Structures are given as structure tokens and as C-alpha cells.
């Protein structure tokens, strides 16, 4: 791995996103609007709100990171810049880590705004450490970046990337305990939920925020998320190929 090349790729991502101010505004603004709606809808049912809010924090981080990475990497492929990059001494790992480093600041900023808004404005129960929340979200974001890069090889345009959302995101939302607690689902759905990375993030976030759990109590969730992230990193690396 070459540090300067990796940082150059991360810097390029940051520059590209900063040039696209409307997308930045939407990435930050849209979750706040949804969170506000959820907050008003369940203002008289704090138990439901307490269960949903941490889950939605994870969902937004996953959703926007996946979407932004998928579209940005698809552009690399279709505009020919990826091919051009691959005819330089850059390594695949430089590209993958560069992408991660480029997207993490935006995911972190988005998560910070949503968590602050959720805790302060919606007044949900929050007993845990924000650092622990950040660590768990980081593992989820790494998985989302790699998934975005991996999925981009199956799409020919940005419209097709959005068509992957029902396949990639919808099952995770339904099967990760966001709408219905997992233990109330049919057994086959409970089994299926085990292969959904978002499930482990939701479990971990609820555990930290509602019950004040330390990282030592959620090592299982964190480890599985990191395994997903690593597996997706390997899959993504296979899609960045030279001759």
C-alpha cells in the first residue's frame, strides 16, 4: 500500500463530494426530516421511538454511504477514470482504502448530526458512550463502502444503482428488527436476518444507546460487522481488475 496514493484518492473523493453541495445538503437534511417525522409519529409511544431511533441512525449511515459510494464508483467505471487509474502504479488496496478514507468523514459528519438531533430534539433514551456508537457505525460504514464498490460492477448507469436499493436495503430494513423486533418474526425470517449486516449494527446501537452497553458487551455484533466488512472488501477488490 502506498500512503500518498491512498490519501490522494481519499482527497479526490472529499473534493468531489464538496463540489456537490446539494448532495451534501440532502445527505444531512433528509435523515433529519425522516427522524422528525418518526419523532412526531411516536411522540406518545417512547418505547417504540427508543427502539426505532437507534436503528434508523444505522440505516441512514448504511443507506447513504452505500448509495454515494456506488454512484461515485460507477462513475469511475463509466467515465473511464478507473481504467486510467489502473494504468498507473496504483494498487487495488490503495483504491479501496482511499475510498474508505474519503467517505468516512462524510458518514461521520452525517452520523454526528443525526445522533445529536435524535438525542437532543427527539429526547430518546441514551445511556451509552457516543464513542462506542461511532465505533460501531464505522464498522457499518466500511461494509457499506465496500458493498457500494462491489455492486457498482453490476450497474451500467446511476438509475440501475438505485434499482439495487430494494434488493440491498429493503430486506435489511425489514429483517433487522427496525420495524418488527426479530424475536417476533417467523423462524425462517429470523434465520435470514443473520446474514444482514444491518441487523448487527441495529442490535449493537440499541444495546449501547438504550442499555448503556460497553463495547465488551457487543463484541459479537462488532466482530460480525467487521467480518462482513472484510468479506465485502475482498469481493470489492475482485471487481477492480487489471488484465
Amino acid at each position, binding site marked *: 500500500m502506498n500512503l500518498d496514493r491512498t490519501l490522494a484518492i481519499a482527497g*479526490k473523493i472529499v*473534493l468531489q463530494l464538496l463540489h456537490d453541495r446539494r448532495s451534501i445538503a440532502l445527505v444531512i437534511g433528509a435523515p433529519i426530516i425522516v427522524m422528525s417525522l418518526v419523532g412526531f409519529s411516536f411522540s406518545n409511544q417512547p418505547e417504540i421511538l427508543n427502539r426505532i431511533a437507534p436503528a434508523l441512525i444505522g440505516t441512514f449511515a448504511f443507506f447513504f454511504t452505500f448509495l454515494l459510494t456506488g454512484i461515485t464508483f460507477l462513475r469511475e467505471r463509466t*467515465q*473511464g*477514470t478507473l481504467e*486510467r487509474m*489502473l494504468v*498507473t*502504479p496504483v494498487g487495488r488496496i490503495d483504491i479501496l482504502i482511499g475510498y474508505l478514507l474519503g467517505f468516512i468523514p462524510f458518514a461521520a459528519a452525517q452520523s454526528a448530526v443525526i445522533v445529536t438531533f435524535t438525542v437532543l430534539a427527539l429526547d430518546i433514551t441514551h445511556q451509552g458512550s457516543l464513542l462506542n456508537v461511532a465505533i460501531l457505525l464505522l464498522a457499518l460504514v466500511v461494509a457499506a463502502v465496500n458493498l457500494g464498490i462491489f455492486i457498482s460492477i453490476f450497474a451500467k448507469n446511476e438509475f440501475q444503482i438505485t434499482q439495487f436499493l430494494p434488493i440491498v436495503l429493503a430486506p435489511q430494513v425489514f429483517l433487522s428488527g427496525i420495524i418488527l423486533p426479530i424475536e417476533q418474526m417467523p423462524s425462517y425470517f429470523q434465520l435470514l436476518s443473520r446474514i444482514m449486516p444491518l441487523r448487527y449494527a441495529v442490535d449493537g446501537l440499541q444495546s449501547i444507546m438504550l442499555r448503556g452497553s460497553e463495547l465488551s458487551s457487543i463484541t459479537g455484533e462488532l466482530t460480525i460487522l467487521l467480518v462482513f466488512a472484510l468479506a465485502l472488501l475482498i469481493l470489492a477488490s475482485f471487481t477492480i481488475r*487489471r488484465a
Partner: protein
Amino acid sequence: MVLEIEKLEFNYGNQKVLENLCLDIPKETIFGIVGASGSGKTTLIRLIAGIIAPSAGSITLFGETPSSRLWGNIGYMPQLQALYTDLTVQQNVNFFARMFGLSETSHRREVVESIINQVSLWGERNDPVAKLSGGERQRVSLAIALVHNPPLLLLDEPTSGLDPKLRSEIWQYFHNLSANGSTLIISSHVMEDARRCDQVGFLQSGNFIAIGAPDDLTSATGNENANLEDAFLYFMNKDNS
């Protein structure tokens, strides 16, 4: 020899794109691959760059099979401009300079500014590429291929979209690079470009129907007034018959 190609074949599915193609290019040569659209020019450039692998035959570049070890020695300009349109001219060139390993900031800045000057884009250096004309984008793409001063340049249609004055300036620049030790392989469908090369290969349906210096190719027609277009048609008819 900088490049040696032996019995090269490339198939795209069942379609033969290049067949039994042989080519030797010595150092400091400007070699023009000239042919119509679909003749296999871009495929050949991408094979030499190592972006795609041959179906059969061999390519030897700088004495070895193209691999990642050689990528620092190649300046590749694809037919598709392959630029970050939301970034400025300087940001684009600077990014690829870093990809090529120019990590020292002040040296890189000097190199990037110099190359932007050489392609006559100094006034536009802070403009986003999206705002540039086709010809200006072409020059940004060229600047990226040149930024690490590579010994081999693979330029796919580098002069398309350039006006006659710029085309002439760019060619002067290519000749300077060649005089300073670089080898240039340039694809084009424009005979005006072919005329300025040291050696030209006429590519037709995936194989060279003639290779030689422009004057030798025109002389071979037996018509002292023949130009390269006449020569191309002459060799094409000869190949068909």
C-alpha cells in the same frame, strides 16, 4: 526495441478483433496506428497498455511481458477522455501525478504547472473540466498522460477535437518528446496525423495491411502524386485482391 508483438490475437466473444498481428517499434519512434473506426486501433492500444490480455500471441514491452511493474513507464491517453469533470484542470492533473508517484509536493506542483502550460491551458487551470470545450478536455487528458514524463506514450486519438493551430502545436510537442528519447504510439483515423509520424501502420479488419514510413507508403503506390489516403486505399485494395 521498445515494443515487440508476435502473432497477436484478440477475440471479443466469437468476434475476432485482431488476428495474427506482428509489430516492432524501436525507441524514439513516433508510430501511427491508422485505420477506420472498428479496425481495432483502440483494442491494440489497450492490449499494449496491458489493460486487456491477448487471446493468443505475445507482447513484449521494454523487454518483458506487460505487467504492473511497467505502468510507471507508460503514459496512456484513452479515447474516452476519462477525466473528473467536477474537478478543475489542475486538480485532475495533480491527482494523476500522485498516482504516478510524484509524492513530493513542491516538485509535483512545478511539474503539474509546467505541463498545464505546455498544453496551453494555464488560463483554464482553475476551471472545472465540465466547463471546458471538447478540445480543451482533450488537452487535459493529454497533460495527464505526459505528467510523469514516461518513456512510452500510448495516445488513442489524441488530436481529435483540436483546431489546426493546436494540432500543429501538439505535434511539435510530440516531436520534441521523441527527440528527447520518448517513444510515441498514436492511433488516429486522420491522415494529417499519419503524415507527421515516423512510421505508420495501416490497420484494416484487425491486421496491418502495410507498415512503413509515410513517404515509403505513398511511393509504393507507383503514383508520385499519391498521398497517404491514396496509399491506404491502394493497400486496402491489394489486401482484398
